[in-house]
């Protein structure tokens, strides 16, 4: 029986594993964390349908649990990858017939954009922090009060050469609109301001959700990047930006600032480039063999990609990628 | 009651502006007075116009008005006949049967009994229909009846009671004292057989009291309720014959029109806001009611397409659009002399010629029309002065439609000066909105204003344009409101189309044509609602099977094109495309 190793137990990896398992291949998932689910396990609801992230994960987990030819090794970090073997941080080496890399992405560290005050002011949080608050059903300010005015800043660590992240992280716009709606649902009397550079509503139902946020939920959208955040005497946050649509600077005091942090390439991608001979894009994400016909293959035979390892992707795309990678792997095994 | 009415009339008449009084003075001694009298008979009594729209409704109104009128006249005659030749007030007959019985007048003139009963039955049939209409208006050909306010409902209830109660009262009288015709007498006989005399005696007084109360309530309420129309329509008909009309600012004459509305609700059905969008509280009947009781809100006044479909059917012939317009003016007009100072010295026009072409704002969004006109002008070898090809100043009508009449005047003055300055003799426009305001308000002496449909037809007739005819080509035509009902231009565009191909008429055409829904007069309905009306109009046009949908208004074209996948073109485009 052929043996495939999937590095990364996020949605793409899990999807790929379950598809491969159905084709009678033995699959091992290497997950560096204590549990599978990747980033999605931290999310609350998924845009644009507001489907609970846990629904998606439990569906995937269920499929994996049914298959008896999938092994999940948690707490295992891969350090070196070849088409026929994967070395773990523990020194152990696993042999295999092909490898699927589904290690996803790293969230941008908002501390680097220090002018936004993440880690400095209490009520500056990231989109990921907000998802966690949603999950705990405990959205409030550091001192326990309810926020009356919330600002959401798009493109933190995306499209920003100053932090060496030139690419668009793709999902933050949609997330920002989704979170704005959720915040309005929680606090109907609060004002929610989205500070955006462009609103990129690329997927089905996204534009409709955006419109709903504007018209139904009265979420304010200001086109302009926040320049700096300062504390005020009453312990709020003062935000400065340009309202580029009126060509005037804008100043606003808010209780809470949510930073829509982008996706950046994993540090490990550099190792993949140097040690495994895989190609990397300028953005740091891995370069698939071909952007159209070989988007699940790497430039190295026997190493495949699934999910956000190659570019920022949303959950649906990552799932689709997982299935594609499974198909490519079984094609490759058959023709080898 | 009469006092209230007279006070109203006198105060309204006194408040009439001088120009109106002059008209009134001139008209009073003219043959118009006779014609007015004839119209009063036709309309106020016989309700001829309603008959034309809906026979059953016509009968209902006619039976009530004419029947009651005859009841009064014949009743008076009866009273006079009984009491001998002495002065009897017109209302003398009302309780005649009651007092006659009490006073021991027991003689009966059979012919009166018969006629009175016949008339009572006539009226009662009307009441029955009215009652039935309230319950089930659709059966009477009205999809929706007026929703009345509480006060009107009281008056209405009183009116409904008057005649059935009179029937019962007279029947009981007949049962006790004998007499009565086939109806009251018949029921009277039946009652005396079935019910004991004691009960009849006991019921006699109260039933006459109820009758008298119902009548009292009705007449007390009349000047303040919708039934004011019964009398107001009469002076209105006279004044209208004397050429008094409402204008773009409110004046005293408007009172006659406003209070002449009987709230019959005939205006509700044709309203597309009602038909298509289910908006039930903005129609002319409600507008007039709210205006009369000083409770008109902007959102009602401005929620109207001003398509004129209701005006077309109004049995009283009230100038509904003008009244709505001057209400809007009262609400919004803020004189602002300096408002368009920036227009000073602006002139973006180009070309030279005695014929001027004014595309209008909307035509600039339908450049195909502009190009087609260019082609037509070239083909007809016309030298043209292009007033606004590179952007001009709005004609002012859209502003006027929102009530800012004085500000609109600033724009109108600008354009007028521009036209005069460039010395044109003919002004052609492809926008019916502009056309209407040019004709009605610009006072362009020496300049003939033509819609491009008229102009093109003229070119064809003069042989300056040679058109290919092809019976294979099928067209259907949408009458723009401002062109058709607004300016009375129905046949010219049709003649042009028929010179090119086959014209298939839509179900609603000419005076009954539908509105595209994007009318500038309405600033309340939203985009989805506009689209819904447009889709409905487009569907009707598509259902003719025509290959090309033609209209003659840039706004209609834009609107209808949203509702269909068929080709929607301006009249000029098919002309330009079929030049020989």
């Amino acid at each position, binding site marked *: 029986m052929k043996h495939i190793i999937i590095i990364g137990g996020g949605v793409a990896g899990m999807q790929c594993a379950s598809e491969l398992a159905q084709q009678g291949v033995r699959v091992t998932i290497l997950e560096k964390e204590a549990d599978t689910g990747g980033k999605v396990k931290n999310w609350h609801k998924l845009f644009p349908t507001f489907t609970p992230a846990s629904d998606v994960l439990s569906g995937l987990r269920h499929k994996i649990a049914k298959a008896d030819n999938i092994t999940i090794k948690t707490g295992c970090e891969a350090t070196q990858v070849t088409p026929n073997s994967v070395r773990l941080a523990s020194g152990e080496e696993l042999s295999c017939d092909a490898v699927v890399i589904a290690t996803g992405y790293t969230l941008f560290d908002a501390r680097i954009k*220090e*002018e936004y005050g993440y*880690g*400095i002011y209490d009520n500056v949080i990231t989109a990921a922090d907000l998802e966690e608050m949603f999950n705990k059903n405990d959205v409030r300010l550091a001192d326990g009060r309810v926020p009356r005015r919330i600002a959401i800043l798009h493109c933190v660590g995306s499209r920003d050469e100053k932090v060496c992240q030139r690419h668009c992280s793709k999902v933050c716009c949609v997330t920002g609109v989704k979170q704005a709606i959720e915040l309005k649902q929680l606090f109907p009397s609060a004002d929610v301001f989205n500070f955006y550079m462009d609103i990129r509503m690329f997927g089905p139902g996204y534009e409709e959700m955006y419109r709903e946020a504007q018209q139904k939920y009265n979420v304010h959208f200001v086109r302009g990047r926040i320049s*700096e955040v300062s504390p005020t005497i009453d312990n709020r946050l*003062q935000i400065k930006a340009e309202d580029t649509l009126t060509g005037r600077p804008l100043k606003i005091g808010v209780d809470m600032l949510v930073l829509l942090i982008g996706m950046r390439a994993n540090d490990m991608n550099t190792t993949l480039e140097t040690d495994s001979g895989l190609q990397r894009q300028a953005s740091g994400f891995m370069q698939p063999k071909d952007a159209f016909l070989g988007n699940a293959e790497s430039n190295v035979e026997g190493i495949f990609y699934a999910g956000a390892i190659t570019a920022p992707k949303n959950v649906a795309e990552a799932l689709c990628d997982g299935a594609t990678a499974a198909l490519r792997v079984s094609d490759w095994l058959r023709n080898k | 009651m009469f006092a209230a009415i007279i006070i109203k009339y006198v105060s309204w008449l006194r408040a009439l502006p001088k120009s109106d009084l002059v008209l009134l003075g001139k008209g009073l001694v003219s043959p118009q007075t006779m014609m007015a009298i004839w119209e009063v008979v036709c309309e106020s009594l016989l309700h001829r116009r309603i008959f034309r729209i809906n026979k059953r409704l016509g009968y209902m109104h006619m039976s009530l008005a004419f029947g009651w009128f005859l009841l009064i006249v014949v009743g008076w005659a009866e009273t006079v006949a009984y009491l001998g030749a002495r002065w009897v007030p017109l209302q003398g007959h009302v309780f005649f049967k009651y007092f006659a019985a009490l006073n021991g007048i027991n003689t009966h003139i059979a012919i009166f009994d018969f006629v009175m009963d016949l008339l009572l039955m006539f009226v009662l049939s009307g009441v029955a229909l009215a009652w039935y209409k309230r319950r089930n208006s659709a059966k009477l050909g009205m999809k929706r009846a007026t929703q009345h306010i509480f006060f009107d409902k009281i008056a209405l209830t009183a009116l409904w009671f008057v005649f059935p109660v009179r029937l019962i009262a007279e029947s009981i009288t007949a049962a006790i004292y004998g007499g009565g015709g086939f109806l009251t007498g018949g029921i009277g006989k039946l009652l005396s057989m079935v019910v004991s005399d004691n009960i009849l005696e006991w019921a006699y007084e109260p039933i006459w009291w109820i009758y008298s109360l119902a009548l009292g309530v009705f007449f007390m309420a009349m000047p303040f309720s919708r039934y004011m129309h019964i009398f107001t329509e009469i002076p209105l008909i006279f004044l209208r014959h004397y050429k008094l009309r409402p204008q773009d600012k409110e004046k005293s004459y408007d009172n006659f029109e406003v209070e002449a509305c009987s709230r019959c609700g005939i205006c509700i059905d044709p309203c597309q806001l009602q038909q298509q969008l289910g908006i039930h509280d903005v129609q002319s009947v409600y507008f007039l009611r709210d205006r009369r009781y000083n409770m008109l809100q902007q959102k009602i006044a401005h929620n109207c397409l001003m398509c004129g479909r209701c005006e077309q059917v109004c049995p009283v012939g009230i100038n509904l659009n003008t009244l709505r317009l001057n209400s809007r003016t009262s609400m919004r007009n803020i004189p602002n002399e300096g408002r368009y100072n920036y227009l000073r010295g602006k002139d973006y026009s180009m070309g030279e010629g005695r014929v001027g072409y004014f595309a209008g704002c909307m035509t600039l969004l339908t450049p195909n029309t502009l190009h087609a006109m260019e082609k037509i002008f070239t083909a007809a070898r016309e030298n043209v002065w292009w007033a606004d090809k590179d952007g001009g100043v709005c004609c002012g009508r859209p502003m006027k439609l929102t009530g800012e009449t004085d500000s609109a005047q600033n724009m109108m003055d600008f354009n007028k000066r521009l036209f005069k300055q460039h010395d044109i003799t003919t002004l052609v426009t492809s926008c019916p909105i502009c056309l209407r305001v040019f004709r009605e308000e610009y006072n362009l002496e020496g300049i003939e204003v033509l819609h491009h449909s008229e102009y093109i037809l003229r070119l064809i007739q003069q042989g300056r344009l040679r058109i290919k005819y092809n019976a294979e080509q099928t067209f259907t035509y949408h009458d723009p409101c401002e062109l058709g009902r607004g300016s009375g231009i129905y046949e010219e565009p049709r003649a042009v189309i028929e010179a090119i191909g086959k014209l298939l008429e839509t179900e609603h055409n000419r005076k009954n044509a539908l509105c595209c829904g994007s009318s500038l007069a309405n600033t309340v309905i939203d985009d989805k609602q506009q689209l819904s009306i447009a889709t409905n109009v487009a569907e009707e046009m598509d259902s003719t099977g025509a290959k090309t949908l033609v209209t003659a208004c840039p706004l209609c074209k834009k609107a209808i094109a949203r509702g269909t996948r068929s080709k929607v073109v301006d009249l000029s485009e098919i002309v330009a495309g079929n030049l020989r």
Partner: protein
Amino acid sequence: MKRSSWTDYQKDIADDHYYYARSCIRQNFFPGSEKVFLDILGKKLGRDIFDDPLHTSCTGIGYHSDVVPLETIMTVVARQFALMSEAGYENFTSSCITSFGIYTELLATWEEFPETEEKTRENLYKATGREFKKPKNLAHTSDVIFHHREEIAQKAVRKLVNYHTGEPLKVVEHIGCHYAKIFPKSGIGGSEFPYVLAGMVESWGGELVDYPERRHCCGFGFRNYLVQANRGYSIANSHKKLESMAPYKPDFIVCNCPGCSMFLDKWQYTIAEMEGITYGAGGTGIPVLTYEEMAGLVLGYDPWELGMQMHQVDVEPLLDKMGIEYNPSAKYLGRNGKYIGRPERAIVNSCSEDTIYKRRF
């Protein structure tokens, strides 16, 4: 506030042997500050610092006003470095933030475009016959004080506390734009949360005020204030800052840039005249100190020796608050007891009524 980010921005500051470059504005408006700086470094801290009479203005004001071309200023700066090398120093410290910005900018330019450095060497040689070496260490004088802040704290005779209540004084710090906004790595704490003055304030017992317009420019911008018609824009910036800090009721403002010190001080007078608004408790404005003056007060210098009588906003309320003894009548006596003149009385300098001159005339 969880302030930790400043630690990411550190720079090397020489410990001893400085070549000192004066500031045009500071030596004119706050001459006491430069004198005291030399005194603190040399006498109190026992460091070697050379105040070279041969050095000139860096011409930064001219450069930023488009009067002096880039090549010229490069040559002038090269001459300063040549003087430093000739005097046997390698650590350059400048008193002016604009100059500091110029030096940093030019060193970076030479780094990125070596041909400009070559050209400058050629120009300098042609013009003066001198040759220069780039400094091994470049620091602003506030960096130098920051570097020695703990040593100064040890030698301090008083802290930045309210003498009467024992509460720490509330201090607003203002950093000159050219200190770290051009090259964040060139400043202690970077450009967002600069720590150079905050570090002094904290070491010497004061409490820092973090207010919304903390990073905003004072409005000095040469082009703006040099043209009278543009000064409305210039003053609007100071106005905005003062409005923003006023609710925190700061005891004083401390700046590291001579221009900012001057502006925040003198514009308070102008705003008071124009709008009738005075900031700070008691309606006499918020005193504006240079960091040298702040260090001097902590080390027990006499306020008049520090040149604090040159301020537009009277410092007496602050001195009283800190429990510093001073001779009111000596305020307008310069060195050798010579009368130096006194400004017209205005809302923001109405403190000492009883100078000897008042009495004498």
